[in-house]
């Protein structure tokens, strides 16, 4: 079959009958996903599209293309960029949550067709929030994600600490006291109280933006176009100083140490929801638990915990927005979410899906994560300059906490950078 | 009519301001064996390559077999060539090397086989038929190169210093082989060499060149006996002819070191109009034997031997005379030791005289 393709049987024309399953009278819908078919995720999308074609037989035909993405985010997004230029976008595509604003602002994706409130209410609030830009719904995710604050039950027991319930998280100050106690135990194990790093890339803002939100700060204003006075607010300075204390008190390692938590040498760890599964399967002797994400001392119950994942959106190139919306809904729907959970342990995006999955009712850790997500989930900043916000965030934390630079100066510098990127939008 | 003819052929390479070959005129008969000889850089290869068609002819005309060839591609000139470094195809066996041209000419397979067998046979290469060039000795490679040229039945055979990479012994025997081959095949041959011995021993006629200009064309012995100028005289013959600057004074010539000789009347007459000339004499025409010493006793000279070379069948004696280092060639029976004083004479009718300025021969 390679040879066939060599000879140039290219797929740019989409005649009915040219693809198996594409019948006369059906409307053609192309869809791109950010994963290759080989991965569990890819297989789920393939199945979802097949079921869509069955369900809408005679009406729509969805044709899926798998576009590889590499670790550093290249590949898929390069392909989108290039396709924007060449005008070859599909009808439906996947977009990473934080990019929705930029794509919407630049007219790469268009608002979905009217969706009933009932349909909307099936999705987690964080999903709707993530997909909404300028009051219009652009995207719906098939999966959701969360970061948990995990703890080692044995260590906490040894330190004599009780964990709070889901609605009463430890505040910054309380957590410091907890850490102080725990440190005595972990020091004996040649470890640290907290397994915490500031990795390059998306993870840092994803893990640690909640510290800022819950401490009365924000990263960008609600229009998504103003950073000055927000990103460099004094609340944010104090949050950064809190991080500095974590390090200076010796609760965390300055350099990242692999598998600190998994090898039983750390009491706490911030990590994606997949950590639970990893520990269950590969590190069976670790007794893992989940506590609610910590909050600023003055927190009064707003949403603040990490969320966000890839979502489906309709490209501005599609001539069939109804069909595209149907496809988006299908791809992000309950069945799709259940499938994704089964195959790749990604959290679903709809309440129904959670209800039908046993572990979210039985396993206390998953239960806890689901509760946190549904009640407190907060999407990342919605701004077309998101990439700059994200890198600035990471750099500020790294520079201030690890290198000891002055927080205010660093934040101000970042604001300048962010403004430079925003100029394109504020200008018009 | 002559078979190959060069008419006023000139060559000037791009980006040079001197002609590499100037006004080359030559007629070659069918089956003739012509040698181009001359010092390095004198234009031999250039001329040959113009005949082959690898270099454009700047001006002048080239005819082969009556047809003007200036604009004809090398392959269509009906020539074959043996290259200095053999230019064998390194990745092909001896057999393939020889048959390659025939294959490209679309000669029928059995014909090719016959010809290749024949060439391999007469060149004594049967043993090496399936070897590649790198596994052959110099002489064997040389023969493969010859084989490649002879199978193609071309009318003209060009060779550019084909023996220069062989050692002395092998050169001597290949010389003989090529001569015989030429006689058997009867193809018109042009042979380039800078070695006058090769030219002398192999060629029917020799073209001797210097700085792109033909000096003399003639049969080997003609050049040896009657060189037209000092350059030819010095170039042909080994060891080199001895030269002396001499003053002419009536029927006496005097050397720079004060020695003098008496000329016979005829000579004196020819040299009447010259004050200074160059005298040339070959080593074998300097005689030490009593007989000659007696015949030419009035011109007996003396010198001290300062080096000898023993060649087996003959010896070279080196001595200072007439203001320059001289060499005489004597039979193996006439041994002398370094430091010994000897008497000798120049055989008078073997002396050559050249104009001091033009260096042209003064015909006696």
């Amino acid at each position: 079959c390679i040879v066939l393709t060599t000879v140039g049987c290219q797929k740019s024309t989409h005649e009915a009958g040219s693809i198996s399953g594409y019948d006369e009278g059906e409307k053609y819908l192309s869809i791109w996903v950010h994963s290759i078919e080989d991965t569990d995720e890819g297989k789920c999308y393939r199945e979802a599209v097949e079921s869509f074609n069955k369900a809408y037989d005679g009406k729509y035909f969805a044709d899926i293309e798998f576009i590889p993405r590499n670790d550093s985010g290249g590949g898929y997004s390069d392909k989108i960029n290039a396709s924007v230029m060449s005008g070859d976008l599909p009808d439906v595509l996947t977009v990473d949550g934080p990019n929705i604003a930029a794509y919407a602002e630049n007219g790469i994706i268009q608002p979905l067709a009217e969706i009933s409130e009932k349909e909307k209410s099936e999705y987690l609030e964080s999903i709707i929030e993530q997909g909404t830009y300028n009051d219009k719904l652009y995207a719906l995710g098939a999966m959701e994600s969360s970061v948990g604050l995990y703890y080692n039950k044995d260590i906490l027991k040894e330190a004599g600490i009780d964990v709070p319930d889901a609605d009463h998280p430890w505040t910054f100050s309380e957590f410091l006291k907890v850490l102080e106690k725990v440190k005595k135990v972990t020091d004996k194990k040649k470890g640290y109280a907290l397994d915490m790093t500031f990795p390059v890339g998306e993870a840092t803002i994803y893990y640690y933006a909640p510290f800022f939100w819950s401490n009365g700060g924000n990263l960008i204003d609600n229009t998504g176009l103003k950073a000055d006075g927000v990103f460099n607010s004094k609340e944010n300075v104090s949050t950064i100083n809190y991080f500095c204390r974590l390090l200076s008190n010796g609760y965390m390692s300055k350099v990242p140490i692999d598998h600190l938590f998994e090898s039983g040498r750390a009491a706490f760890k911030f990590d994606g929801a997949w950590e639970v599964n990893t520990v269950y399967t590969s590190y069976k002797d670790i007794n893992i638990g989940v506590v609610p994400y910590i909050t600023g001392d003055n927190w009064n119950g707003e949403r603040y915990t990490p969320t966000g994942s890839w979502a489906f959106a309709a490209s501005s190139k599609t001539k069939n927005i109804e069909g595209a919306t149907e496809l988006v809904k299908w791809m992000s729907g309950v069945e799709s979410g259940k499938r994704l959970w089964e195959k790749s342990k990604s959290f679903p995006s709809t309440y129904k899906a959670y209800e039908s999955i046993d572990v979210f009712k039985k396993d206390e850790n998953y239960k806890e994560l689901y509760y946190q997500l549904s009640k407190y989930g907060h999407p990342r900043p919605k701004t077309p300059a998101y990439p700059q916000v994200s890198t600035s965030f990471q750099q500020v934390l790294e520079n201030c906490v690890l290198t000891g630079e002055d927080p205010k100066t660093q934040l101000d510098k970042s604001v300048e950078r962010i403004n430079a990127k925003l100029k394109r939008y504020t200008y018009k | 009519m002559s078979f190959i003819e060069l008419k006023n052929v000139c060559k000037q390479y791009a980006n040079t301001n001197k002609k590499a070959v100037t006004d080359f005129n030559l007629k070659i008969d069918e089956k003739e064996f012509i040698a181009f000889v001359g010092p390095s850089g004198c234009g031999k290869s250039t001329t040959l390559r113009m005949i082959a068609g690898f270099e454009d002819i700047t001006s002048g005309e080239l005819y082969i077999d009556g047809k003007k060839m200036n604009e004809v591609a090398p392959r269509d000139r009906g020539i074959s060539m043996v290259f200095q470094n053999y230019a064998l195809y390194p990745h092909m066996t001896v057999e393939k090397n020889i048959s390659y041209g025939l294959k490209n000419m679309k000669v029928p397979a059995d014909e090719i086989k016959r010809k290749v067998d024949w060439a391999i046979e007469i060149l004594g290469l049967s043993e090496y038929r399936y070897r590649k060039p790198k596994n052959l000795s110099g002489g064997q490679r040389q023969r493969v190169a010859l084989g490649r040229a002879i199978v193609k039945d071309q009318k003209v055979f060009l060779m550019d210093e084909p023996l220069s990479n062989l050692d002395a012994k092998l050169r001597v025997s290949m010389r003989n082989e090529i001569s015989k081959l030429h006689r058997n095949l009867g193809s018109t041959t042009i042979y380039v060499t800078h070695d006058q011995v090769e030219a002398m021993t192999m060629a029917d006629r020799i073209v001797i060149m210097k700085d792109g200009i033909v000096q003399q064309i003639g049969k080997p012995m003609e050049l040896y006996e009657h060189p037209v100028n000092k350059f030819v005289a010095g170039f042909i013959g080994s060891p080199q002819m001895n030269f002396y600057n001499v003053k002419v004074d009536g029927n006496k010539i005097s050397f720079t070191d004060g020695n003098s000789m008496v000329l016979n009347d005829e000579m004196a007459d020819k040299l009447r109009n010259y004050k200074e000339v160059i005298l040339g004499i070959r080593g074998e025409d300097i005689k030490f034997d009593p007989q000659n010493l007696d015949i030419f006793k009035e011109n007996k000279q003396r010198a001290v031997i300062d080096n000898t070379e023993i060649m087996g069948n003959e010896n070279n004696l080196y001595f200072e005379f007439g203001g320059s280092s001289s060499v005489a060639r004597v039979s193996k029976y006439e041994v002398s030791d370094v430091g010994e004083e000897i008497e000798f004479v120049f055989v008078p009718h073997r002396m050559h005289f050249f104009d001091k300025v033009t260096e042209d021969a003064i015909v006696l």
Partner: protein
Amino acid sequence: MKKKSESILGMAFFGPALVLLTIFLFIPMILTLVFSFTDFFALNPGLTHFVGLENYFQVFKDDDFRQAFGNTVKFVVIIVPLQGLGALGLALLINKVTHCKTYFKVAFFIPVVMSLAVVSTLWVQIYSPEGILNSLLAHIGINAQPFINSASQALPSIAVMSAWQGVGYQMIIFLGGLQAINPALYEAAEMDHASGWQKFKDITLPELKPLCIFVFITITIGAFRMLVQPMVMTGGGPSHSTYTMVYDIYETGTVNWEIGLASTMAIVFAFFVMILTVIQTILTRDKEGKKHANKKTKNN
């Protein structure tokens, strides 16, 4: 007649490459140059304006780019002597070794043939705080080093790893150079009572000199183009200490979608590298020229 047919032949041979070069190198380069004068934005190509030299001013003002440039130069300064002398040293050693030459040649070359991404991934493990290298250091009583996790050590650490990865290639070139030296020169020097050091200084080095220039320039260009190693190992950090020019180009263009600005950076970058190449040509030209002249007279 010869000239004309030769020209046709030459163009026929060179033609296919020329067509492809034009489409896939010249035109993209010209486009890059054109983009560098615009605010071309990947997500919204329709809104592109001509902005004159603004991008250039911005690039030269940009702290990140300046730091990236500084880092790149630092990389070069560390790698060039390290990798160059390393290659020379290895080549000298291999040349001396009497057995298993092939084994050594293959062993030292293996990092060269492996994908940079793979090699970088492996070295992240090696450099990790509790990784192999630190446990080795612990054995000889040296405290654990942060390596790529510290702003001061990250860049040298990556440089060492890059030198490790690439040294095999230059080693092979030096080895070829060494083997091309006429052994009789060493014997002549022996007869001239030269010591080992004198032989190295008076024969090996001068004979390798033209090669050295070539080798050092290839290393420099390679170091200038460094991208994958910091991308995989440190993401340009910590504190931008391993952020390189090409990395900056990549991020600006791919992550921030600023194609116009990235093109400007690419042009500036190409300019620097070009200067190096020109220096190389000047340094080596006169020899080349002479060599050719010699050859011509000899061949004919």
